[in-house]
């Protein structure tokens, strides 16, 4: 196999703004504040930054960010598509750029004022539908939650997945958030009764199967393994990185293939584990993209933590809960209970687990998995404590 980027780069800085609704600052200002905080965390001057990676849905352009924060001459910049599928993709792209000498210090970020209704993509659809949306939207399958609910119902039918399994996910993440003072739901508990009695959003999914709507920004700083050893914080090495766009896939409305429940996670996992020295059995803690609770079940299957169709039962018995579960998942509360910033908060929590600074710190977390949006072309990263 060709030489990979294994252990050649590390996340050395993380930064974020407060999470909220209706934050007064602009998205650009939030982005700059998060990047600035990440650079301070790393102990790296803005003028040393020469690489940038961002979501192609990011409204803030590299030029505006770079001249605000005072970055140096940028020699690498790239964007990754597919919304929530891009999070690990931008970090991995930055890592590849550092590993191949295209830049020395790269920043990846996501800023969003999602709580602003006008920012929700599904609320902005034009009223004549073209492209692949014309096969679903004219029939009232309008929102991401509707699109995922359709696959969820099928998963329930094929494998016996239940609302109790989905509740396991929602409750686990809320428990984790309750230990995280920065989480939007840090002080709000959630019971199984509350889950079961919540209003429907798109049956079979209820309110608590959905992520939050959040304003906020987060950023990471990536540099070479050599440089990382001299930075302020313990490095979180980028051990393996992969993207996944499976054959015949249709983003979000993947109803048209031979096997719609074999989602992007399966494609990403194949490359991820092939390029890694570790496998799912070695992962101590995982941050799995959770715009909706069923995506956790699909991701547990796709990344190989359980067999096909066993994602629901995998969540039973506190198995994804800190501290005693086999695989604590979304240990800062995730998109459903910490903040929904297109999954970028999951990247930072994956790094905190390696550093030993999570609000739900897993003992001996030397292998930490982060994944991005399931149901869209996706990406995933394995961070390790050792290079």
């Amino acid at each position, binding site marked *: 196999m060709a030489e990979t980027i294994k252990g050649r780069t590390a996340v050395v800085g993380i930064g974020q703004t407060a999470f909220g609704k209706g934050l007064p600052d602009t998205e650009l200002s939030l982005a700059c504040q998060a990047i600035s905080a990440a650079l301070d965390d790393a102990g790296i001057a803005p003028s040393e930054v020469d690489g940038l990676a961002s979501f192609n849905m990011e409204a803030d352009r590299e030029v505006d960010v770079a001249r605000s924060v005072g970055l140096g001459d940028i020699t690498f910049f790239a964007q990754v598509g597919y919304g929530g599928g891009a999070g690990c993709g931008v970090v991995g792209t930055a890592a590849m750029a550092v590993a191949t000498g295209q830049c020395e210090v790269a920043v990846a970020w996501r800023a969003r004022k999602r709580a602003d209704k006008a920012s929700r993509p599904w609320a902005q*659809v034009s009223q*004549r539908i073209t492209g692949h949306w014309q096969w679903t939207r004219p*029939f009232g399958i*309008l929102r991401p939650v509707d699109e995922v609910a359709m696959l969820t119902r099928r998963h329930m039918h094929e494998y016996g997945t239940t609302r109790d399994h989905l509740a396991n996910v929602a409750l686990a993440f809320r428990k984790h958030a309750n230990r995280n003072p920065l989480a939007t739901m840090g002080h709000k508990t959630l019971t199984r009764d509350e889950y079961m009695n919540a209003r429907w959003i798109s049956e079979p999914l209820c309110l608590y199967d959905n992520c939050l709507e959040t304003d906020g920004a987060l950023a990471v700083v990536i540099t070479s393994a050599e440089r990382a050893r001299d930075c302020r914080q313990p490095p979180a090495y980028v051990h393996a990185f992969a993207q996944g766009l499976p054959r015949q896939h249709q983003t979000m409305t993947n109803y048209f293939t031979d096997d719609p429940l074999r989602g992007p996670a399966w494609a990403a996992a194949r490359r991820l584990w092939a390029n890694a020295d570790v496998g799912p059995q070695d992962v101590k803690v995982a941050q799995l993209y959770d715009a909706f609770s069923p995506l956790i079940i699909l991701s547990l299957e796709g990344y190989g933590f359980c067999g096909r169709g066993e994602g629901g039962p995998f969540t039973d018995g506190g198995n994804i809960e800190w501290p005693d579960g086999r695989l604590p998942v979304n240990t800062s509360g995730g998109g459903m209970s910490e903040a929904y910033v297109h999954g970028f908060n999951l990247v930072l929590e994956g790094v905190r687990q390696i550093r030993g600074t999570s609000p739900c710190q897993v003992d001996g977390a030397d292998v930490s998995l982060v994944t991005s949006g399931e149901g869209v072309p996706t990406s995933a990263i394995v961070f390790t404590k050792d290079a």
Partner: protein
Amino acid sequence: MTVSGLLLPDVDDPTAAGFWAGCARGELLVQACGACGAWRMPPRPMCPHCRSVEVRWDRTSGRGRIWSFIVPHPPLLPAYAELAPYNAIVVELEEDPAIRYAGNLVTGPEGAIDEIDPATIRIGEPVRVVFATVGDVVLPRWVRADG
């Protein structure tokens, strides 16, 4: 022109116009490769089997089974919030279950998408296509095959 805020397809979309023209004639079509004959849904400009760009439109049986369904509730765009809760379904075609269409289960061509009790809908139910005129567009909808 839209009908009270409903999201209707652009029936002139060059890749898909053949499908919508079929609906207007009361036929549920599927795009087929003009060279090897393989069916594909949704339509696309090249055959993933033989890479031909030749396209033809085959008529289907218009019969299938419910593959999955949802029942959306607000918050929704206003025109849909008025109808909610309503059903949306995905149907797998009788002659090729890998060919699927999204739609709605109704009692007849003029039926509303909120008229069937969602608690009665089952995956696997046999259905057949009907066609509903909505504004200047004809949409496929589905009725129970044994109803």
